[in-house]
């Protein structure tokens, strides 16, 4: 057989295989589809995870399944601040050693941990669960704003610190809350914005520098 003849018959075999695509059994395909719903999991990762689950020799996949249902049943938002809790109140809200007159308002419960890591704040928190974003159809009534106002009326805060994002929606949400609270004899503050730690002036944009200048601190 000549070389060209060989390669063309090879091509024919290859071609046939391409047409008759073998796939995973339906159960595996279903699992892959389910896994793909998770954030950050694409088709390739979903396939790898699914295969690992099926081929695993111990019961790690079952342990994970139990952990998922157990955690989902146990964890709920803290009634007071919205952080993750196993009881009615979260660990932070139950902690008596924390200052009870300082309140820090954040967008999401996940914003609380980075602030905690700084150990610069030992007061109470309140997570709004988002921000006022008309373009995403989120209004004040969709957030935990009424809960915040009730809490402020009930408890005795001397200062409320707003730690929302420094973008248009974060800004607007802060303005909205400040407007609702400014009649009360409570100090309202916002976390400073400006140069990143370790950053030089030349790499900062005009807006950041402007905010750094207007928000300067006394030495």
């Amino acid at each position: 057989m000549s070389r060209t003849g060989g390669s063309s018959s090879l091509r024919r075999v290859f071609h046939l295989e391409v047409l008759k695509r073998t796939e995973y059994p339906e159960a595996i395909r279903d699992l892959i589809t389910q896994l793909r719903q998770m954030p950050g999991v694409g088709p390739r990762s979903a396939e790898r995870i699914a295969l690992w689950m099926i081929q695993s020799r111990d019961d790690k996949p079952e342990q994970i399944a139990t952990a998922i249902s157990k955690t989902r049943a146990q964890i709920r938002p803290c009634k007071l601040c919205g952080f993750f809790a196993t009881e009615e109140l979260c660990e932070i809200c139950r902690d008596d050693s924390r200052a009870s007159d300082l309140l820090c308002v954040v967008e999401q419960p996940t914003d609380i941990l980075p602030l905690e890591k700084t150990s610069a704040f030992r007061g109470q928190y309140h997570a709004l669960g988002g921000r006022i974003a008309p373009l995403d159809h989120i209004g004040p009534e969709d957030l935990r704003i009424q809960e915040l106002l009730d809490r402020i009326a009930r408890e005795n805060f001397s200062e409320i610190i707003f730690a929302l994002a420094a973008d248009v929606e974060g800004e607007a949400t802060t303005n909205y809350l400040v407007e609702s609270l400014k009649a009360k004899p409570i100090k309202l503050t916002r976390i400073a914005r400006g140069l990143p730690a370790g950053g030089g002036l030349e790499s900062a944009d005009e807006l950041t520098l402007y905010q750094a200048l207007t928000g300067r601190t006394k030495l």
Partner: protein
Amino acid sequence: MLTSLRLHNFRCFEGLSVDIGPGLNLFLGGNGEGKTTILEGVCVLLRLQSQRSASLAPVVQTGKKSFGVRGRFEEHELEFRYRALRRQVRFDGVEQRTVGEYLRLGRVVSLANVDIELVRGGSDTRRRYLDFLGLQIDNAYRPALRAYERALRARNALLKSPTARPREVAAYDAPLIQHGQVLLRQRAELTESLAPLAGQAYERISAAREKFTLRFVPGASADFEGDLERSHRESIRLRQTIVGPHRDDLELRIDDFPAAQFASEGQQRGIALAMKIAQADVLKKSGDKKAPLLLIDDIFGELDPERRNALLDNLPPASQKLVTATAMPWRDEIIADIIYELCDRRLRRL
């Protein structure tokens, strides 16, 4: 200087690779062959925006989900991939989180027949003209423009909502004012540098006696906050924000008469050209002082040899130029460094 360009699933091209020379690169081809698309590829690569459409969605080849452009500019490798919800920008092979450094590199001015819309069209065309320049000159322009647009859209959505939401509207006033003031100031400054250059360019290319003047007409006064307050009642009635830089405009006049109504077709084309030459001049004077890359789309075909030469003489000579034409009626006059012919989606070097 741009030395190479590669397009992938980009409008009519499934794949196209072009080497680009330092001086004048001429692309010849019939209508619909994709000449403008090659220029658009350069614009999207260097500026991450198209010179001919406001959105990048139509750039994706029909039936495909994404497009990609790659190229070499000076010693840097640039790459941009676009799909509906994801844009990926790579600078020397490294994925960029922000586009600042990437966009600092290549600066572009586009000259095309549609530029006559600068004179005849609505004010959005003229704001885009200012923005196209502002985005290439000042790093603070992009964040101010994006934030302003976002605040404006949010505020207008609230004004349009079926139930009145006055407190939420008011919450968006501060960001609207803050970013709007930056934008107003930047556009006024841009016009200040453009106006004399555009006037001079018009004089040179038209060899005419009439005088062309360019003036910034801001959509709000220096007291933007006060304007917003005073227009409050009216904006509630109309359910939209009626003052602000989204109403900015440029006033174009020929000997004190509004150019849109009183200038002849030839004068209007001259004005459009002069405005683009001024753009190139401003770019050449700012930043790294390098002449911008020029995309000249199908303009030469309409000009007689004398005007063609006048135009070429008025463009920064150091500029790298990409020029398209349907035919080459002026073989002896212009020395192109590289001539390509485009036929059936393929490039052939002549």
